[in-house]
């Protein structure tokens, strides 16, 4: 990615944020592709076929670690890989979290209402077709202790 020499610290941050966001998308999709290649012998050709384009085009998308993709390209890749895309933004000053439907509110729970004993919550099982990674417990334990 070509970046012009910045004039101020603010310009530097702007260029940095641009590059990091571009890289974020390419990296995320490549992480999925790498995983599927390892687990299911997935190939870029499969992705190209699903999108109805040539493999060289898909390869080109990933030949740069920080490509400036259009939103449609991101949506197409998510569709072709059957990924649900979740986007959130965090206000750097206040820490407030935003999603497309507005600000995410957090519920404050009084510690008096929490159980004093250990409680356990089971995680949903993985699909049969998906191999269980080594070391992953069969259920996730959440321990709550009252103050």
């Amino acid at each position, binding site marked *: *990615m070509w970046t012009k020499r910045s004039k101020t610290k603010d310009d530097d941050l702007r260029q*940095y*944020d641009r590059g990091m966001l571009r890289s974020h998308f*390419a*990296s995320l999709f*490549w992480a999925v592709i790498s995983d599927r*290649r390892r687990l299911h012998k997935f190939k870029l050709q499969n992705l190209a076929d699903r999108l109805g384009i040539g493999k060289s085009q898909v390869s080109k998308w*990933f030949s*740069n*670690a920080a490509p400036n993709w259009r939103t449609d390209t991101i949506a197409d890749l998510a569709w072709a890989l059957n990924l649900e895309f979740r986007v959130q933004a965090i206000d750097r000053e206040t820490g407030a979290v935003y999603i497309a439907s507005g600000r995410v509110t957090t519920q404050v729970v009084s510690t008096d209402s929490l159980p004093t004993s250990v409680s356990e919550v089971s995680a949903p099982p993985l699909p049969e077709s998906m191999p269980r990674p080594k070391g992953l417990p069969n259920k996730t334990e959440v321990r709550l202790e009252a103050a």
Partner: protein
Amino acid sequence: MRRAGLIRRDPLRPLPEQVRELWVTPEIANLLDGKVTTFSSCEGDLVVGRFLSGQLVQVSRLAKDRKRRQAKLIDVEELEGCGNVWVLCIRVPKPGWRLVGRLIQQGVFIALLAFDKHEEMKKHKDVATMCRVRSAEVIAIWNSFFGPQPAHSAADLEGFLGGVCRDVDEAI
């Protein structure tokens, strides 16, 4: 590593999770801070930020048959046959700067030497000679800092660098 006088580089913005680490000499820290005029600190920050965050890095581990088109886009190179010496490439403005060093553990890169590739190419007859000379220099500095401790070795690319990597030499 701090006792050896090395400085840990932080990304321009804090990361929720830092997957890789970069340690540099004080001279390289000055370079990354923009105290050398031919170096684009803005581009350097971006390459370092992407590396530290564990995001996708394009990697080449083969010296031979490295396609010209791919060479322009490689972020990290292993100097093949030079004793686990790796290069972090900052390619803008062309031909850019190279940070040469070794990995002390998975995803922890110790940059011990930096050079402007344009200037460096004037000193050597070809790239292979440049790589040989510079990697020998890096190994000597490594030995002076870490003594007999060997550089990190792994079976695959992820084992070396952690995070998300793409081996550009591999056909997909």
